[in-house]
C-alpha cells in the first residue's frame, strides 16, 4: 500500500494525532517513553472509554448519536449492585438485569429515533435524564442510599473486575475483544456496508433494500448495553456502585470518536480510527501526570488536540475525495 492510499483511510488523521501528542509530551514534558507505554492509568481509562466509544462511533457513522450512555454506565453499576449486593441475588441475575436494562433503554432510543424525526441528540438527551432520574429514585426507594456495595464472587471478579499484574484492569482484554468484534462488523461483514450507506444517505439506503429501521434500533441497543457492561465491570471492580458519574463519558467518547476520524454527520469512519482516537484521548488526559507540565493544562491540551485532529481529518477527507482527479490528470 503506497502513501496516497494510506492518506485516503479514515484513521490516517488519528495516527498523526497520536504521534503528535506523544511527541509533544516527550519533547516538551520530558516524558520517559518506556514509562508511559507501560503505565496502567491511560490503558485502564482507554479500555473503559473504548468499550463505549466503539458502539457510539458506529452510531455516528450511521448518522446518529447516543448520549444516554452517560446515564447507562451508572445505571448498569447500580442495577448489578442493587440486585446482587442489596438483595443478595446471584451475580448472574445482577449482570443479566443490568444488560437487560441496557437492551431496553437502547430499544426505546431506537424506537423513538425510527418513529419520529426528532434528532437523536435530543431523544437520547431525554432518555439520559429519564434513566438518571429512574436510577436515583430506584436506589433511594429500594436501598435508601445513593451508594450501594457489592461483594461479587471470585469468578465474576476474575472475569470482569480483577487487576492483572496488580495494575491493569481486566476490562482491557474485553476492550480488545470488543474492538475485534466491531472491526468484523464494520469492515468485514456486509452489515458494515449497510451502516456506511445509512450514514451516507438514509433514503437511498432504504430504497436499496437495507433494513434501516432494524439496523438503527440494533445499534442503539448495542451502545446502551455496552455502556451498561462498562458499569457492571466498574461495580465488580470496585465492589460498589454510585448513582453519579458517567457524564464525563459522553464528551470523552465523542472526542475520542471524532479524533479517530469519524465524520460527525455520518457515512465515514473506521474502527481502527475509533480505537486510535480513544488511545490518543487517554494518553492526553493521563499522560500529563508523567510530564512536568502543570496538571491544570490537561483540558486545554485535549481541546487543542481535538481541534487539530478535526482540521486534519477534514483535510485528509478532502484529499481522499480529490485523489481520483489528480491521478487521472497524471495519466492523461
Amino acid at each position, binding site marked *: 500500500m503506497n502513501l496516497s*492510499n494510506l492518506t*485516503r483511510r479514515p484513521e490516517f488523521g488519528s495516527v498523526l494525532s497520536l504521534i503528535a501528542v506523544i511527541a509533544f509530551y516527550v519533547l516538551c514534558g520530558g516524558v520517559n517513553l518506556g514509562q508511559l507505554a507501560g503505565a496502567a492509568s491511560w490503558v485502564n481509562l482507554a479500555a473503559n472509554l473504548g468499550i463505549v466509544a466503539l458502539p457510539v462511533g458506529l452510531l455516528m457513522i450511521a448518522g446518529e448519536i447516543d448520549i444516554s450512555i452517560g446515564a447507562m454506565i451508572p445505571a448498569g453499576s447500580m442495577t448489578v449492585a442493587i440486585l446482587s449486593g442489596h438483595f443478595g441475588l446471584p451475580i448472574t441475575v445482577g449482570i443479566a438485569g443490568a444488560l437487560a436494562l441496557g437492551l431496553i433503554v437502547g430499544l426505546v432510543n431506537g424506537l423513538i429515533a425510527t418513529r419520529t424525526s426528532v434528532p437523536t441528540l435530543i431523544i437520547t438527551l431525554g432518555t439520559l435524564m429519564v434513566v438518571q432520574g429512574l436510577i436515583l429514585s430506584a436506589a433511594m426507594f429500594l436501598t435508601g442510599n445513593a451508594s450501594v456495595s457489592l461483594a461479587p464472587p471470585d469468578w465474576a471478579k476474575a472475569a470482569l473486575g480483577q487487576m492483572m499484574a496488580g495494575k491493569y484492569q481486566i476490562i482491557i482484554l474485553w476492550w480488545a475483544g470488543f474492538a475485534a468484534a466491531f472491526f468484523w462488523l464494520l*469492515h*468485514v*461483514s*456486509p452489515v*458494515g*456496508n*449497510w451502516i*456506511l*450507506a445509512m450514514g*451516507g*444517505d438514509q433514503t*437511498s*439506503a*432504504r*430504497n*436499496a*433494500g*437495507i433494513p434501516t429501521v432494524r439496523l438503527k434500533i440494533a445499534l442503539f441497543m448495542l451502545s446502551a448495553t455496552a455502556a451498561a457492561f462498562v458499569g457492571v465491570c466498574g461495580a465488580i471492580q470496585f465492589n460498589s456502585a454510585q448513582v453519579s458519574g458517567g457524564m464525563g463519558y459522553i464528551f470523552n467518547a465523542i472526542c475520542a470518536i471524532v479524533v479517530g476520524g469519524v*465524520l460527525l454527520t455520518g*457515512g*465515514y469512519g473506521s474502527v481502527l480510527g475509533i480505537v486510535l482516537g480513544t488511545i490518543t484521548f487517554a494518553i492526553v488526559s493521563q499522560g500529563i501526570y508523567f510530564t512536568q507540565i502543570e496538571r491544570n493544562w490537561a483540558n486545554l491540551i485535549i481541546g487543542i488536540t481535538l481541534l487539530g485532529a478535526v482540521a486534519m481529518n477534514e483535510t485528509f*477527507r478532502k484529499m*481522499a*475525495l*480529490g*485523489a*481520483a*482527479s489528480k*491521478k*487521472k490528470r497524471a*495519466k492523461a
Partner: protein
Amino acid sequence: MTAPILELKGVNKSFGPIDVLFDINLKIKAGEVLCLLGDNGAGKSTLIRLLSGVHQPSSGQILMDGAAVSFPSPRAASEQGIATVHQFGGTFPLMSIGRSFFVGVEPTKGWGPFKRYDRKTANEIAVKAVQDFGITRIDDGDRLVGGLSGGERQSLAIARAVHFGARVLILDEPTAALGVKQATHVLRIVNEAKRRGLAVVFITHQVMHAMAVGDHFAVLIRGAVAADFGKGEKTREEITDLMAGGASMANLEAEIEAQAQ
C-alpha cells in the same frame, strides 16, 4: 416495433386541491429514448415520481408489459426493473466505488454468521460494469465515489442500474449540472443503454441534449402533454418555442428586434 414496456393511460395527479398532472398518456418502449421536456414547474418531476413509485397517481393507469401495475414504494418500482438516476448520480460520496455499487446486495464469501464482504469481487464487477460503458478512466474500485466527476458519477449510477437488471432507466436531468464535455459522456452512455435494449426516460430542459439521443419527445406544459412527436418531426426552434409556452419566445424575439430598430 415492440409493445411498450411502460405505458401511462389517462394519468392524473393532484395534491389536495392542486392538480399537477392532467390526463397524461405516454408510451415507453424498449430500445428507445423518450425525452421528457418542459419548463420548471411543468410537472416533469411529479411524473417521474409516479414512475419511480415515490407518488401514486390520483387516477388513471400505469401499465407494465400491458398489465396494470402500481408501485406503492420506490422499492417496488425498482424490483419491477425501473431504475431512477438523479442529477448527482451516486448518493454515497464517501463510500468506495465497489461498496456503493453493491449497497444492499453485497457479494459475500464464507458461510452463516461468518459471511465476509467480498471486496475484491465487488470492486472487479463494479469497475468492469462502468468500463463496459466506455468509462475506462475508472479503474480502482477502492476510490471514493465523491472523487469522481459529475459525468463519471452518472455513468456509475447508470451502469449500476443496468447491472442489476433495470429495464426502464429514468434519468432526472442528468446533464443539467455538467459541462459540455461531461454531458457528452453521459449522452454517449444513454445511447449505450438504449443499444442494450433498455427503455430510457430522459428528463431535461436542454433541447440540444434531448435531440442528440431522443427517439421520441413529449413536451409538458402546466401538467399536460402539449406535444408528443417522433424524431425529426420538429426543429429545435419549434421545440424551444413549445417548451417556453408557444408564442412567448417568438414575441420576446420580436420585442427585442423592435427595440433594436
